[in-house]
């Protein structure tokens, strides 16, 4: 009997509506009760309800059309749902953070690279100190030698070079030679630098070898009437860099250790031994005007030939490639950079 009584509670009518009553129990619970005929009761009447009605009263709130916040509150009342929600939220936040960070780093590095704030990354190996064979002092001690002959390597197809001849150079500095016709054999699509015979002064021949092949940006030989004057004018420009390199290692990319222009070189040997230079302007907002000379030398460090490459308004991002067919006696070279860097307007 007593147990039965425990299952019931007294409640008092606070409001009477058409289809339901609003009750308040003695322990302070407010509930909506729709099981009775509401018209039979008046405010203040006492009624007895089952305790289970109190627990199930949550359903009544559905009919009250609670607002959104209330619904959310109801959904997350259960701890299980709360924890699941927290976990999912944490994972979502973590993933979002990682994605944002990744994109930020990627685009940030790209941007900094473009603007030049980051040091450029060389793709080739930097030339080691071993390749720098001789210092400037050894250059001064070099004695002039007569180079009586020099042949230009022929094409791999074996066709005769146009205008390829043995050249003799007189030692007499006063004598000036006349330039032979410049010819190109482009049967293979490759440009071959042909010799241009002329007479250099003894002093210049010591420095530059038997001949200077002047190349402009198109890779074509530039006909210079008076090479000695050319050299004189060139040497009026400041020397920006000078370095010695040997050609012992084949099929390997090397980079000249000059910071303002990326100069890569490679020696290949197929039928002919080729020296390939690749120049890339890496100084932003500046133009290079000048000459980059590759002075080839033999095993005794005697200069054989010089390839003088003219650069005009060589600006950031520009590239240039020059291929030199080496002679058998040529074992090393020196890079000399003459010129100026001008501000880009």
């Amino acid at each position, binding site marked *: 009997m007593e147990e039965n009584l425990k299952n019931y509670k*007294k409640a*008092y*009518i*606070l*409001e*009477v509506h*058409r289809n339901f009553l*609003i009750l*308040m129990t*003695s*322990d*302070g*619970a*407010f*509930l*909506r009760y729709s099981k009775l005929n*509401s*018209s*039979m*009761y*008046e*405010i*203040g009447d*006492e009624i007895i309800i089952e305790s289970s009605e*109190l*627990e199930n*009263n*949550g359903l*009544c*709130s559905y009919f*009250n059309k*609670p607002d959104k916040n*209330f619904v959310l*509150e109801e959904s997350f009342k259960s701890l299980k749902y709360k924890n699941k929600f927290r976990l999912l939220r944490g994972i979502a936040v973590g993933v979002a953070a990682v994605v944002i960070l990744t994109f930020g780093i990627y685009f940030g590095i790209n941007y900094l690279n473009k603007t030049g704030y980051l040091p450029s990354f060389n793709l080739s190996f930097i030339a080691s100190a071993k390749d720098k064979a001789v210092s400037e002092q050894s250059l001064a001690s070099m004695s002039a030698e007569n180079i009586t002959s020099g042949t230009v390597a022929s094409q791999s197809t074996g066709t005769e070079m146009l205008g390829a001849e043995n050249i003799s150079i007189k030692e007499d500095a006063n004598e000036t030679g006349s330039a032979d016709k410049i010819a190109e054999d482009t049967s293979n699509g490759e440009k071959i630098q042909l010799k241009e015979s002329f007479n250099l002064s003894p002093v210049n021949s010591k420095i530059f070898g038997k001949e200077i092949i002047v190349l402009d940006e198109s890779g074509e030989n530039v006909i210079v009437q008076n090479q000695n004057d050319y050299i004189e004018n060139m040497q009026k420009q400041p020397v920006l860099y000078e370095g010695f390199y040997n050609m012992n290692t084949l099929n390997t990319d090397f980079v000249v250790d000059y910071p303002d222009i990326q100069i890569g070189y490679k020696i290949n040997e197929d039928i002919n031994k080729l020296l390939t230079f690749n120049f890339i302007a890496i100084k932003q907002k500046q133009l290079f005007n000048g000459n980059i000379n590759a002075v080839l030398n033999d095993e005794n460090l005697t200069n054989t030939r010089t390839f003088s490459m003219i650069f005009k308004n060589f600006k950031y991002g520009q590239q240039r490639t020059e291929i030199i067919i080496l002679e058998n006696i040529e074992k090393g070279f020196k890079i000399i950079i003459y010129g100026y860097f001008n501000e880009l307007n």
Partner: protein
Amino acid sequence: MVNFFQINSLEQLVLKAKEDKLVNEKLIEQFKPFIASVIQKRIGKYLEYGVDDELSIGLIAFNEAIHNYDYKKGKFLSFARLVIINRLIDYYRKETKLKTVSLNGYNKNGDNEENAVIELLDKKAVEKFLYRSEDEERKFEIIEYTRILKEWNINFSDLIKICPKQENLRNDYKKIAEKIASDDYLFNELCKTKRLPIKQLEKLFPIHRKKIERGRIYIIALVIAIKIKLSFLQV
């Protein structure tokens, strides 16, 4: 703002209403739900103000009760109930006199429906004038409670939503309400700001502030119930 210490008894209010028209109107307004529930209970159907004439009759009867009430003769609510029912009886009698008798409208007993209602009301009207005082008090308390909650912009449908279903949480909130009702400082803070003094409550009770905030309306309703000494509320 409600001053809980100036809640008058119903009889005092009625005496004031006799002389003051404004108090009279307020009292009628306050007891409208009660008047409707009395008439509905007697008639046995739901009525609406502005639609059903019975409720208008009830309001007029209630006003009459205010003016004719003599406190020496018993409780006001019992008296008002009696007057309302009597007036309803009069209304139905007038209605049946005006209408022609319809052959189709007879019930099994041979009476028409309206006569049956009159009979029922007649029977009920013989009730004793003196009602059980306990019930009377409770009804008045509930009506007063409703009025005060209205002044705080709290309605019962909000309370049903906010009221915690778990008994433990309800008990926690009740403890907080009891503390506020008993502590003058906390109670004055509540009356002044119409907000719970959560900072102080956090220190006093091991309940998270968000939990307290969530049950704000319910706690205030309990405080009001405790303060007006709602007789059926166990504290």
